[in-house]
């Protein structure tokens, strides 16, 4: 299983029936592929839709039905559309149960940086700051390291997305949570040892007595 699939499959396990879920661009988008069909999850697209469905069949795309990246999507029966004020009212108001975003850095207090590399990448934060500030539960789905460097750091060197700590990071090596504000290794990826995770992680990880392997 490739890294992205592993991460997406593990994140899918965090969703419950009835949840309103917002998925960021990239790995988070893949999560929809691994949600069991009997799980009734509402997916929100921040450009104004609840009830996003799969990519439309050939010839069935509509130019006015797109995701936040402008790509054609479909709408499930029972979908609803709304303006951006409502969309962010839902997000900021705590109505989104789970938001899944990509990350550049997560630090050992659970702070996320994912919108800017000063002097290099200044795309704007889009909806990320509202999503992290307002969602009930924030999950970061990202590779454990980039170019050999850990993305789970002691302290974010990049500008923060929010001072509100995230709840969970799921990487190709581990699941890390932040109970009491301290990075804690919850699970390891199949075939990855605890030692390998610790070695690949810049942040100080708390290690509970039992650290199971991810079930997917």
């Amino acid at each position: 299983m490739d890294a992205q699939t592993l991460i997406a499959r593990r994140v899918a396990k965090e969703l419950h029936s009835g949840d309103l879920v917002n998925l960021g661009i990239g790995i988070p988008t893949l999560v929809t592929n691994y949600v069991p069909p009997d799980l009734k999850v509402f997916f929100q697209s921040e450009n104004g839709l609840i009830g996003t469905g799969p990519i439309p069949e050939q010839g069935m795309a509509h130019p006015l039905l797109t995701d936040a990246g402008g790509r054609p999507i479909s709408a499930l029966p029972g979908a609803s559309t709304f303006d951006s004020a409502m969309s962010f009212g839902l997000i900021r108001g705590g109505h989104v149960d789970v938001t899944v975003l990509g990350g550049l850095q997560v630090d050992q207090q659970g702070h996320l940086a994912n919108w800017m590399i000063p002097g290099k990448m200044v795309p704007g934060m889009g909806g990320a700051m509202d999503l992290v500030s307002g969602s009930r539960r924030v999950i970061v789905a990202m590779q454990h390291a980039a170019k050999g460097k850990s993305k789970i750091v002691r302290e974010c060197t990049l500008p923060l997305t929010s001072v509100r700590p995230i709840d969970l990071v799921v990487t190709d090596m581990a699941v890390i949570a932040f109970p009491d504000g301290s990075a804690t290794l919850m699970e390891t990826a199949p075939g990855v040892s605890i030692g390998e995770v610790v070695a690949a992680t810049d942040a100080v990880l708390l290690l509970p007595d039992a650290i199971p392997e991810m079930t997917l």
Partner: protein
Amino acid sequence: MRAVSVVEAIAMIPTGASVMVGGFMGVGTPERLLDEVVRQRKGELTLISNDACVPGKGVGKLFDAALVARLTASHIGLNPKAQEQMLANQIAVDLIPQGTLVERIRAGGCGLGGVLTPTGVGTLVAEGKRQIEVEGRIFLLETALRAQFALLHAFLADGLGNLAYALTSRNFNPVMAMAADTVIVTAENIVPVGVIAPDHVVTPAPLVDYLITNE
């Protein structure tokens, strides 16, 4: 509401005007109005829009033609031309969180001086902003945003100016319809008065100043 040609509508916009443009990555953007802005070379614009779209599409066309002097948006990462112009200091860019952007516009349209949001507290976004404490929580004071013109796109418009939107093309259009001195609208379908049910009107007719006729 007055029905006008696209040429006549855009001719009203002076150089250096502040202009809100509806749409999200070009979806729900009035392409015909933007094409005419480019044709008439209305420059030095202060543009307020969710994003910079991509080159050749939506508000991206305004960057292609170098007509933008100042931009307020939440995201420009998918338009390399807008990024280049920003990094070369050809345009002054104010990047703000999407939820804050839409609330500032809504405040401008609804006669509010501003709103208190938790978004951005403790980040770069908080720089230079007033922080207000309410019941022990800290919020940023984000002030109202208005423009001289709003260029909008609807799915249905009737002969009075009532508007309805389709699917994800609604986005910023309804809030911008309230936040500009002059509101100019294109619609995919112009229908007789009464065809849009009262409960399905999203932007009431009195908010629309000019509707572009079919040509």
